[in-house]
């Protein structure tokens, strides 16, 4: 087993924190729209997004454009929708077409906030240990 981490902990936790806060925003939006008719709950695949972020292969909205190789091809505008944003599969249908299950969203929101806090703690710890290595003083 390879014990050496693949990424520097500062870089890793920064990317994780960015994604966590981004997901926090998505989940807050789901909660705010829990009574909007026709609204569909969105979420991201965290592990996949983090891997893409770290390996520098993050997909932008422009990455799903069609290539126009012929004069007659019609170029399409990039979709304003984020290709990483997925739709949550509802566990039970609702009359107004809204797919927000407030229990699921709230538990995901709470879980996400705990992980955000963890990322913050790890990042803080890394910064402290580097500071102590630089200054030679125990922090």
């Amino acid at each position: 087993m390879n014990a050496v981490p693949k990424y520097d902990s500062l870089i890793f936790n920064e990317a994780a924190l960015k994604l966590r806060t981004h997901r926090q925003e998505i989940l807050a939006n789901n909660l705010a729209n829990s009574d909007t008719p026709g609204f569909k709950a969105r979420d991201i695949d965290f592990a996949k997004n983090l891997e893409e972020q770290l390996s520098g292969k993050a997909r932008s909205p422009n990455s799903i454009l069609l290539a126009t190789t012929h004069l007659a091809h019609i170029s399409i505008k990039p979709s304003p929708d984020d290709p990483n944003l997925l739709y949550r599969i509802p566990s039970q249908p609702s009359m107004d077409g809204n797919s927000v299950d407030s229990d699921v969203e709230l538990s995901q929101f709470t879980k996400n906030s705990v992980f955000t806090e963890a990322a913050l703690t790890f990042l803080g710890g890394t910064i402290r240990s580097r500071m102590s290595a630089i200054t030679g003083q125990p922090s």
Partner: protein
Amino acid sequence: MSLLSSFDIGATGLSAQALRLNLTASNIANVESVSGPDGRTYRARHVEFSAINKPNAPGAGVAVTKIYESESPLRRQYSPGHPKADALGYVDMPNVNPVEEMVNMISASRSYQMNVEAMNVSRQLLLKTLDLGK
């Protein structure tokens, strides 16, 4: 910063749900209002919610796009002595459905609490971020 915008999103949810609660209160208060300022019978008012879309953002919360008056038929009540009674002795009463209003009130208050919860969590995380590296 994403955490700050989840505050804004929470705020849109709070104001939308507060407006819904206001309308419920107004509907319940006017359950017997035979005539409004325009002389017509009061009709139940409801909100229409729609999601706000912003480019390059996963979403920007919820907005109240319309307040509409319920189209359901008015309640006809027989009271011949009433000054607003028609030739047959019936009075048009508001079409407020108390059951619907109570359900709306509970739903709105739950949603309001959920948004407050979300904002509280975001606040704690932001405060923790401020302490980063200390």
